[in-house]
């Protein structure tokens, strides 16, 4: 059932890409720096939060998800929610043991 799609050309300037790239590099630096500190549980929490922010930056800007049809955003949301559930369930092991 082809509903037809509207193709909008969204041109993003090089400046935006470079800013996002610098942002990703900065977050990588913060991740490495935080890994060297002893923050107990917060080490993992901070690393995961930074990784999530970086993933959102890549998906919205580099992968153009920000400008795509709603159906693509729904599909991406399903994938992210699934990943989130996997992480939460895995941490039922790591947070309560060892």
């Amino acid at each position, binding site marked *: 059932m082809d509903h037809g799609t509207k193709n909008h050309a969204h041109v993003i300037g090089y400046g935006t890409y470079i800013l996002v790239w610098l942002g990703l590099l900065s977050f990588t630096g913060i991740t490495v720096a935080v890994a060297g500190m002893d923050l107990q549980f917060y080490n993992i929490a901070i690393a995961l939060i930074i990784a999530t922010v970086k993933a959102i930056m890549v998906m919205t800007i580099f992968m153009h998800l920000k400008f795509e049809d709603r159906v693509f955003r729904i599909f991406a949301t399903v*994938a992210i929610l*699934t990943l989130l559930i996997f992480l939460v369930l895995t941490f*039922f092991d790591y947070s309560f043991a060892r």
Partner: protein
Amino acid sequence: MSNHALASQSARTDFMRAAGSRKGILSWILSTDHKRIGILYMIAMGIFFAVGVLFGLLIRLELIAPGKTIMEAQTYNSVFTLHGIIMIFLFIIPGLPAVFGNFFLPILIGARDVSFPRLNLLSWWLFVAGGLMAIVSVFLPGGPADTGWTFYIPYSVRTSTNVIPALLAAFTLGFSSILTGINFVTTVHRLRAPGMTWFRMPLFIWSLYATGWVQVLATPIVGITLLLVVVERALGVGIFDPALGGDPILYQHLFWIYSHPAVYIMILPAMGLISEVIPVFARRTIFGYSFIAFSSIAIALLGSLVWAHHMFTVGMSDTAQWIFSLLTFLVSIPSAIKVFNWVSTLYKGSIELEPPMLFALAFIFQFSIGGFTGLMQGALALNMHLHDTSFIVAHFHYVMFGGTGFGIFAAMHYWFPKMFGKMYNKARANVSFILIFIGFNVLYFPLFIAGYMGMPRRYYDYLPEFQSLHFISTIGSWILVLGLIMMVANLLMGLRNGSRASSNPWGGTTLEWTIQSPPTVENFETIPVVATGPYDYSRYERGEHA
């Protein structure tokens, strides 16, 4: 020749004989026709299946008596590893979706092809490349991998066998699976014929759709995990190996996050196929269509959340143990819904015991045994006793072979006349079914008993008290293989000399039975307009068929 004559000629030329721009084998291995790709998968998988069966036969022969029988322990380790890798990654995961999904998904929804035909061909090429890599790994210096198909750390990092080629093979096969999943999900969303609403779709399509999502969402996780093992082996980076500061339990989590949903990638399409076969041969409208459809989605969802029941003995937290035990029990509900609905469809039906129906009924029987014994392992206390015993081997063979394997055989016998326009010998098909059914149960049921008594899985040697059970099991493997040879020979003979099949030999009501056998390249002369649900047997139910 007028345009009309050309059109009518092309409508009669089936996809097997249609002249394309290429000739000979190139017209097949470079074809983007979903039906040809389905048959390419069937041939490749048939070859891999034969090799996997041979390895399985050798395993059973080695275990016929304690001590060395026909091979050394190291060879035995490699043989059961290859048996697992081939059967899981090269036969049963692609199984129904790659062969029958490719061939019938577009036809069943009234489309001419899948959404991305070239991607479809690429996925077959990746499948072949992955399969060849797995085979090449056997012959490279170092010898075939001996880790089991699970590649558990730390052994898979430390063994000197060819683990990296085997891992890369599995990684490549994963990509093939992802591409197929993307194609199927998109096709179901975008290419349904006019009037083919979600709740007019055949249930096989619902199951392929649910499977497609699992393929897309879960496979990348095992892909990156296997690559990390490659990095660990090749570069000595400590990720999973405790000796390098890694965490082996994390590997098990990541491996099973994919590999348990993979079980549903294997079984869901078979469940969909059974939902096609039962109403046709019971002459009954399927009971509880929407429940079966939603149970496929529920199985895909819940089945993705139960992976750690493979790890109850590794020292997980108590919280994780009871949560995963609970989730494991929950996933049995949608599976049971399907079984109840199939049985309810049979009730008061005009049952015809044709070969596809026999395989479908055997599926219900054996899948039920596999399912119930799975519930036993979901119970934490009992799991401690049964874990890593041959009880597990019996359980998953009842689900994977007794379920999915028999589902594939049912599909072969059900759709054979549509795919090739010929009919096989039904009497021989029935005899081969009986041999396969008896052989299968004689092979695997004793392993439940041996496992319950304490026989570990994957062991080369065993105590004398297990010998009689192993002996019976090995006899079963011979009966099973005899049945398989007879079944394949019968189908090949049908392909060569079978009588001409009509376009609808079983009296089916779904779209594939409205077109000629074999189908044309375009499937439909004009795209059909769908006005009813897929299983309308009301005239039989009113007694009007006579």
